[in-house]
Structure formats: C-alpha cells, structure tokens
C-alpha cells in the first residue's frame, strides 16, 4: 500500500534540473529568497540559548510518536470524536480525495475555500474536486498566485518563490477576476491589497473550508494551524463546515508538547520568533466557528515509510522548509525539478519512501544532493537527511542487483577499482592522463562533462579533476627533491 498522488516525479531529476538550470531569472529569484530567509533564521535561532536542547526534544517527541503511533491515533480519534468531530481514514490519495469530495457534496455547495496545506497538495485534492465540479479557492497569497498562473508550487513555505514582483503583477493583471489593472503596481503592498479584495467576498460567503494541520494532539483531539496572513483564521472560523486533511504522522502526544514545536517551527520556517497567527481548535465549539467538523487521517505511504528503521526519521518532518533554503542543489534548480510537492532535501528522501522507489522517476531523487550536510544542521527535528539519502541509494542499488542500471554500473566499476591498490593507482594515473585535455578548458581543476554513466553526475555539477600527483607519488619522490 504505497503512496499515490503528487509525490511522483515524472522526469528523472538530472533531466528536470537541466531545464531549470537554463533559467537565469529563476536562479536569481531563488538565490535572493533563500539567502534572505536563511539569514533571518540564523539570527532568531541564535537568540535562544536552548536551541539545541529544543531540537533534541523535538526529535525525541516525534520518534516517540512514531513508536506509539497506533495507540496515539486511537487516543486522538477518541478525543476528537468526543469533542464533536467526525474522524475518517484514507489509505491513499485517491481514497482521501473521495472522502473529501463526498463530504463537500453532502453540504450541497460547489465552492470551497482552502488553507495552504501540504497534505491536500500531496493527494491532489484541487484536481479531484474540480473533476467533481467543485471549485477550490486557494486563499494563501502565494498559493493564489500559483493557482492563477496555472502553475505548481515550488517551495514548501513560499510556493511562489520562483516569481518576482513584476511577474506576479502580470499574473494578477491578466488572471484575477475584477482586478483594477490601471491601479495595480508591482509594489508588494498593492499586490497584497488586490488579493485581499479578491478573497474577502469569498471568505464572508464560504460555507465549507478545507485545511490541513501542522499538529494534532492525541491527548485532547486538538488541531493546530500555523499561518501568517489570517486567511487561515478566516477559513477556520467563518464557514459552517470544516474538513481537515491530516497525515497520520502529524500527532503530538500531549498539548504540552506544543511548547517545543511552537518554538522550533516559526524560527526554522520564516525566521520569525513567532508567526502572526496560530489557531488551535478541538472539535466544535458552541456558537464559535464551524459547527460541522471532519478530520480525514491519511496514510498514503506513511505506514510504508515508518516500517524502515533508517528511513522513518523522515516522518518527523514538520515541513518548515529550512532544509530547502540551505541546500546548494535546491538553490540552483528550484522546487519543480524534484517533480513532487515535497521539494528539496526532504523531498529527496520522503517521496521515494512514500511511493516506493520505482514510482515514476523517484529512484533518481536520492541522487539530488551533494551530501554536504547543511540540511541536517538546519533541521529543527534533526532528521539526518544525508544518512537517509545514502541509505536509499544503497537500497536502490541492492534492489536492482542483476539488472543493468546507471548507478550499478558506476558503483560496480568503482568497487572493482578500489579493491586493489595497484589497480587504484593505475586508474588514477589514467584519470590524470584523461584529464589533461580537460585542464585546457576554462576551469583548471573541474570537469564539466564525464562520459556515461558518470554523466549523470556531471550533468548537474562540476567534478573536481584528479590531482596532478597522488600523495603516494609525492611521498615516494620527496627524497629525490
């Protein structure tokens, strides 16, 4: 029972990355944005003397959740039900979409407002609702930009990070119903105001809202949504019916555990001490907020991921996106190259585990990294992403033993060479000779293109040339000066 939906890369990563690398505008938008958040994050993280202790606790709380998941899910369901919510379960993306579609249909409406949520993107909910004749209106500014542009999000936190203000202005001018084009400048304030006007009427008239949840508290049945703009509060407060789509790994054991995550998440995510708005609600409250409350608990490959002792740490992820902003590969290729709603380092380990490596081109994702370790350093729940990447590469090689594949050929040749010192020395000499003509090119010590199967590597990065002399050669020749 593997995961389905928008977590399957359609194109091998190197191929998809190449297309993005050819877009200098994208690269400069990305560079500017990731470095801005990165610097802000470092500043506010540095303010907390107990940051490392918070990370250690955050990781342990999530590991505890994974260890006790079935019991905690039981507890959550009982508490949420007692508070007046109805809990539904879904094995995969199709089933989750079917449940939500049925629930919306029961209300008799054909338009819903939506809070930005990774889970609903993962299951492809908007597409499913549209097919059922239901319009899903994204109310987060960035999601709205992406939706109007008929595009896909490219970042977990700032899905429209690949657009600059001029491009956004043009999208609004062209696609936003009722927008006053003559008054629309490319000032961020003017663009935000246009979005406010466009969405206000929808908020005030919507009867059904769909959300995800950042956290679900087993002890109390409480759901938590963390946001900035207030669109979340609008959706969580004004409609009659609220449907929340929640991955089963989102649980926290107790309400008190939020004290860790409400400190870790905003600082890691937007680089703020706290995001402007956080909403917590438990079932239905008399006279306040939606009076119909549904929670859809989604597996979609999470049970599969949890079964792997090394890989399961990916399920600690709280979707803060810090690992994207520090990743040298993400910074150059952007989110679309990963081919799924989970881009960057976390996407490279999460998607292939949720779908199984053989879905689409997901087997190429664990190679979308330089293994530099910056993602692990940044991760608020200490997911050792490089460790999982190497583990998944190994699993990929093992699974395809006996079948020719790019990495098997490359790794096979490599291990034959490395097993014997003379062979290794000879190979190095050969590599040096082979490298000589490359040295004549623009860069002195890097290779831009290697022959297949190593072209997969140099297609997206430069490789260092072998040194002109090995250490052994230098040592041996040292006495003769």
């Amino acid at each position: 029972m593997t995961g389905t939906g928008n977590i399957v890369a359609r194109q091998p990563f190197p191929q998809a990355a190449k297309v993005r690398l050819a877009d200098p505008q994208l690269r400069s938008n990305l560079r500017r944005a990731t470095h801005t958040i990165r610097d802000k994050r470092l500043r506010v993280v540095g303010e907390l003397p107990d940051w490392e202790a918070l990370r250690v606790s955050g990781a342990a709380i999530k590991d505890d959740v994974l260890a006790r998941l079935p019991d905690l899910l039981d507890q959550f369901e009982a508490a949420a039900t007692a508070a007046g919510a109805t809990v539904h379960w879904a094995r995969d993306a199709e089933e989750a979409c079917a449940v939500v579609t049925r629930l919306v249909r029961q209300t008799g409406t054909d338009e819903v407002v939506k809070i930005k949520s990774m889970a609903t993107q993962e299951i492809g909910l908007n597409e499913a609702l549209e097919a059922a004749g239901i319009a899903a209106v994204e109310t987060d500014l960035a999601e709205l930009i992406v939706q109007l542009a008929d595009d896909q999000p490219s970042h977990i936190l700032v899905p429209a990070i690949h657009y600059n203000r001029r491009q956004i202005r043009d999208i609004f001018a062209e696609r936003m119903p009722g927008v006053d084009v003559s008054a629309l400048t490319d000032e961020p304030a003017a663009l935000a105001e246009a979005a406010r006007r466009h969405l206000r009427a929808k908020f005030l008239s919507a009867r059904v809202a769909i959300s995800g949840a950042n956290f679900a508290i087993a002890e109390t049945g409480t759901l938590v949504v963390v946001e900035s703009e207030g669109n979340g509060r609008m959706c969580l407060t004004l409609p009659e019916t609220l449907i929340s789509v929640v991955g089963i790994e989102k649980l926290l054991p107790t309400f008190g555990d939020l004290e860790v995550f409400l400190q870790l998440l905003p600082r890691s995510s937007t680089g703020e001490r706290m995001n402007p708005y956080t909403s917590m609600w438990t079932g239905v409250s008399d006279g306040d907020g939606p009076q119909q409350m549904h929670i859809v608990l989604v597996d979609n490959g999470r049970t599969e991921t949890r079964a792997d002792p090394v890989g399961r740490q990916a399920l600690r992820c709280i979707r803060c996106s810090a690992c994207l902003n520090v990743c040298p590969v993400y910074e150059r290729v952007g989110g679309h190259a990963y081919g799924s709603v989970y881009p960057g380092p976390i996407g490279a380990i999460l998607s292939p585990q949720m779908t199984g490596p053989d879905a689409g081109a997901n087997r190429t994702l664990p190679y979308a990294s330089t293994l530099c370790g910056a993602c692990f350093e940044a991760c608020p729940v200490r997911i050792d992403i490089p460790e999982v990447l190497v583990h998944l590469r190994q699993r990929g090689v093992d699974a395809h033993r006996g079948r020719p594949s790019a990495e098997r050929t490359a790794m096979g040749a490599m291990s034959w060479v490395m097993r014997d010192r003379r062979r290794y020395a000879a190979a190095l000499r050969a590599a040096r000779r082979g490298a000589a003509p490359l040295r004549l090119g623009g860069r002195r010590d890097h290779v831009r293109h290697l022959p297949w199967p190593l072209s997969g590597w140099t297609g997206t990065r430069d490789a260092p040339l072998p040194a002109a002399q090995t250490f052994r050669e230098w040592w041996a020749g040292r006495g003769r000066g």
Partner: protein
Amino acid sequence: MTAREEIMRRLRAVRPIPPVTVPRGYDRGPIAAGPAPTGPAADGNAPATTTSGGTDASGTDASAPELIELLVDRLVDYRATVTHCDPAGLARALAGLLDDVPAVAVPPGLPGGWLSAYPGTVRRDGAPRPLTVTDLDEPGLAVVTGCAVAVAETGTLILDTGTDQGRRLLTLVPDHHICVVRTDQVVDRVPEALRRLADPTRPVTLVSGPSATSDIELNRVEGVHGPRRLDVLIVAG
C-alpha cells in the same frame, strides 16, 4: 477491511519500535504551578538565567520591567503599536486610542468601565444579539478585547475566548484590534504561557503582530486578511 483497520494492521505489523524517552533539557520556565506534560525532567542544561517571567510558582509577580521591555520590543518589531497606562488611566488611554473610531465591537465580558470615556458607539456581542459577520465588516469598526496570556520572548498575545476576549470572529473580521494586556499576564517564554491556559480545548488563537505576508520577494507586508492594525495597551498590574 476498512481503511482504518488496514492502516492500523499495517502500523502494528512493524517490528516493535523501542520506546523513546523524551529529554526536556530546554528552558521550561517556572514549573511548580503545574505537572510536567510528559517524560522525565531536564538533564540539567536548562539555562536558568533566561527565566525572568514570574519569580514565584504562581507567576503573579511577573511584572519585571525587563520582561515588559522585551514584550514591547517584540511587539514593535512586528509593527504593532504599544501604549502604557495604569489601572486608573485605562478608560482615558482607550478613548485616546479610539480617537478617530466611530464604533467599537466588544466581547460580552469586557469590563464596563473600560469604555466609559469613549464617546462613540459600543456594540456588545450577544447584547441583545450575537454580532454577525456583516456587523463586524463595517468600515472603520475597531474591536477591543483583553487577552489570556502574553509571551514576552516572542511578542505573542494569546486569546482563549475568555469572556473579555469573546468569539474568534470578533478579533478577525474588523480591521483594527486593540488588545489590553495586564502586566501580570506577561510571561517570559512559550512553555509557561501554554501552562497558564485554563482549558486548552477551548478555541485558542495566538496573535503576534497584525496580519502579514512575505510571499512577494519575501518583503513583509502588513494587513492581508486579518486586522491590519494591532494596538496593544499595557496596564501596570
């Protein structure tokens, strides 16, 4: 097999995962007021020096000037405006903040005296009828509430729908929110603040500055969907 049964079966089919002990080495603030959430307590590296909020277990003596200063610094950083007054000057201070505001909405339990110096129209939720979205969407309307707790370190006001804060709707639809914070409601950090909530299963809203977005080239813009303007009035306790 239902989806629920199948997911549970798959979860339980995994080889048992060893139990995890959660270390709590971070700063949890003064804890004596309530039981620890879970797990054994600190491994000793909690820096006690950052815990300035509340010098006793009940946290009632939390009006250390540094704490209020920190709160103000954080609030201003989020573009909230901050004013101070003492209990006797509260009504006058509020009237000053509402100078150009023709009407205010207030929750059912807002102390009557607070608006005694305000000459405009007061719309009390639930008296005689609950305010509607249309009532609250009136241009120029402001809302005045209290709060449950304020977190100095993060500049956060916590509303838990107590009677002086009212339904979530009240602080969401109007463009202008004025929140009154007593100094004895201010704590240092998040853990202490969450422990102070009377009942976490009531709807809880954490507010840190006015509505804001950073979606366009990561430029912060205030005022997208929630209140565009947040005024905080700090009343010496």
